[in-house]
């Protein structure tokens, strides 16, 4: 069968995009539209489900099936849909407030179940749609509308949370780093199991430049280390810095000063997430922040496969359900 070859434009809905001009969301939308045709999956079998927040308007702009649900709960809708329609490719679009505050519970449980869906978490470290309150990823001391004297909460790292929840695919990318973003989304889509992609996304209205150290091309090389499975961790504009594991600490070294063998080789496929967790905990400015695929582990059963396999197994063992037999099972009696 010849499937029509789709272009990015085929995935655009007829709705006007209503994000603020300059918002990082545009870049993510563009990369998604670019990546989906490469996956060769029919539009009608693709579903975007979101919660509430700026990022959660995303499904309206995709010419696929979609649901703009309620705050923090997108993974739950995805769970019901994917469990009953495993042939669909389901994407959850969420934000830092949506996934980590109000929806924290669903986020971790979806990951531990390893439902075969893709979660894209737009992290702008602020509440945008409610106009500028601090979020669970806002840095300590951040002054916002709701924290005039500075935020006193300790921030969460979505990657650490995901690894702790036994996620099988954990990655990070950056809105402005479009090529990397596209590759990461594609890798996420190709992973079987729950894929989490955190995307650093600039909110140019309420938190402009909060992650400029990673987003701006000039700064990025010094502050971000791009992970590649099987490759040493090297960064810097001149590729002059590396990450070394000494004892149970990661440290930055000058590549010129240490033998090449000393650098940490990234193992995204290691079943034990201990070193991946150490990478996830690297924070600017003390350390460069990792982007790319931290973890990608194959062979873990998925919730949607298993819930359907149990049904198949029960039918094979007991035969298809027979209402009449059910009603008459156990003790019955006749009244003449």
């Amino acid at each position, binding site marked *: 069968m010849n499937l029509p070859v789709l272009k990015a434009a085929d995935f655009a809905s007829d709705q006007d995009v209503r994000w603020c001009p300059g918002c990082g969301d545009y870049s993510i939308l563009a990369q998604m539209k670019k990546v989906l045709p490469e996956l060769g999956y029919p539009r009608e079998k693709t579903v975007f489900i979101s919660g509430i927040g700026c990022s959660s308007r995303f499904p309206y702009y995709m010419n696929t099936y979609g649901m703009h649900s*309620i705050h923090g709960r997108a993974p739950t809708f995805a769970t019901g*849909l994917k469990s009953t*329609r495993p042939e669909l490719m389901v994407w959850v679009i969420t934000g830092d407030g949506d996934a980590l505050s109000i929806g924290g519970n669903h986020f971790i449980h979806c990951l531990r179940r390893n439902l075969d869906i893709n979660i894209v978490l737009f992290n702008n470290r602020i509440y945008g749609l409610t106009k500028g309150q601090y979020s669970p990823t806002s840095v300590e001391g951040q002054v916002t509308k709701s924290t005039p004297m500075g935020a006193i909460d300790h921030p969460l790292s979505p990657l650490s949370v995901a690894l702790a929840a036994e996620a099988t695919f954990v990655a990070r990318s950056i809105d402005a780093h479009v090529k990397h973003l596209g590759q990461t989304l594609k890798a996420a889509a190709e992973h079987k199991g729950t894929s989490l992609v955190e995307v650093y996304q600039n909110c140019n209205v309420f938190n402009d430049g909060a992650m400029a150290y990673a987003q701006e091309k000039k700064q990025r090389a010094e502050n971000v280390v791009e992970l590649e499975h099987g490759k040493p961790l090297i960064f810097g504009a001149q590729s002059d810095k590396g990450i070394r594991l000494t004892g149970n600490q990661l440290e930055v070294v000058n590549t010129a000063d240490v033998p090449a063998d000393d650098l940490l080789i990234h193992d995204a496929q290691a079943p034990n997430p201990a070193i991946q967790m150490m990478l996830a905990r690297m924070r600017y400015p003390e350390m460069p922040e990792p982007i790319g695929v931290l973890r990608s582990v194959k062979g873990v059963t998925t919730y949607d496969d298993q819930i359907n396999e149990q049904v198949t197994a029960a039918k094979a063992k007991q035969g298809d359900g027979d209402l009449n037999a059910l009603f008459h099972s156990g003790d019955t009696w006749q009244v003449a």
Partner: protein
Amino acid sequence: MIDTSNSSSTSKTIETVSGITVRLCGDSGDGMQLLGTQLTNTSALAGNDVATFPDFPAEIRAPRGTRAGVSGFQVQFASREIFTPGDTLDALVVMNPAAMVTNLSDLRKGGILIANEDGFNDKEYKLAKVESNPLDADVIEQSYRVVRVAMTKLTREAVSEFGLSTKFADRCKNFFAMGLVYWLFGRSLDPTLRFIEEKFSKKPDIMNANIAALRAGWAFGETTEVFGESYQVEAAKLAPGTYRNIMGNQALAWGLIAASSVSKKEMFYGTYPITPASDILHELTRFKNFGVRTFQAEDEIAAIGATIGAAFGGSMAVTASSGPGIALKGEAMGLGIMLELPMIIINVQRGGPSTGLPTKTEQSDLLQAMYGRNGEAPMPILAPRSPGDCFDMAVEAWRIAVECMVPVMVLSDGYIANGSEPWKIPDVADLPEISCTHPAGGESEEPFLPYSRNENLARPWAVPGTPDLMHRLGGLEKEDGTGNVSYDPDNHQHMVDTRAAKVAKIAERIPDQDVFGNTSGDILVISWGGTYGACLTAVARCRDAGHDVSHAHIRYMNPMPANIGELLGSFRTILVPELNSGQLRMLLRAEYLVDCIGINKIQGKPFAVSELVDEITHHATTRRQDASARRTAKVG
């Protein structure tokens, strides 16, 4: 096969009675619920009409021997048609002093009190907070027929040959009590013997010990001199057919399976464990071969979220909870209403507010069901009236959900959820047809309109995977037709009106309200939910006493049957008994502008027939003189 040659006939006198109400009480670990269930099944198999009322603490093993830890199971079995588990007890079995002092007031004068004498000692008196042996009080011997049985000792003797530890031997004593009760009421041991053989097939010692204890109890009744005679209850004259005993939650589960089957839709059941709804999950998850997928979610919101997701995908989607969980689901229910997807939301009500009385019954979530969501969010509501009716209401809920593309709420309650009754098994061919259709892609040149409507005001159920019908749903207000986000004021008015009209129109698709008695007259008792049996029985007694009283029991709470208004206008006095402070009464007054008098009780217990008879009789014999008649009666 089991040799039952010695277990079915007695050499003593047999007195035939038309019905017996018995309550079995002990510690929550004493196996009283098992005993009650077995007695119920056995009585049902004997052809009796049966009605049950299990009553147990919220704690799994409340402190042993205390009043708080008493677990009880009441069953009435009769040779006539009955609708309640009975008001007063003919016999009470107590395993310890706490069970005795907390239940004795319900035993009728002259009733049989069977006490496990071995459970009455100084330690137990202390735990039950009684000064001395309550059995020794003069008034006890004078008021009741007291039968003291050393059940623990006799059970140990009966099972001694199996070499069980004392702990395991003592666990058999509920079967000894069962054997004695079976002898007293002429019940066959066979169904329980079959049960024991099946349940303990992998533990032959326990199986044989329990059988020995059961037979020893029966033999004790036969040989002891304290019982001069036993009792017999003939089979009831129920409508012809094949029957089985069924519990409310089981009937709900089976109704859902039946609805799934007739609509050719596999079921997704998303839920979070909560008393008293969890048994629906336990039942459904056994039937994966019917295509049932059960999802035990991380919380109540995830449970309904997944349910809505499954509905979007085209499955029969169901969630269930009790009041506190329904409160958590409020926002998602509103989304379900906006998305206009079919699904069933079950609330097995319990005592509230907050955590309230988890194991006790109440009808206090009617207004929550009607109005417990933000915005104007009407939802059809059905309320089963009895354990068996849960089956029909489950099927009906799915029919309405599919035909009108709307979430439907089923309001059950703890009383009917845990209660049981004989259920006439339906012919599968007689089950209603439920047809689910989904538009196919490529049918039209026109753009697909996900919020176009048919004559029921239902929108098309287009499911992901269908080419050309891609659309986006969401909780933002929808433009009629396209389903696109719309902030247009007139469109919002139109959509609010349309969602309400869609629910209101369901009144055209449900049967008229039926009435027991006359369609006009002096008094109409109007009730809903699990109070059906008590209200019907009370009205029947009042009619027998010559009063002009009729009874209407509403099963369709929203919208109500089309003739309710006319009915309310045809009686001089409207009485509304409810296990709440007057929620149906408020709805009737608001909607139909008629005065209604409440009979309200909120004690975590069902109505006794006698308290309703007293209230109805009071109104039947007192002429209404002034507005004082508008008082709310408090009973119990």
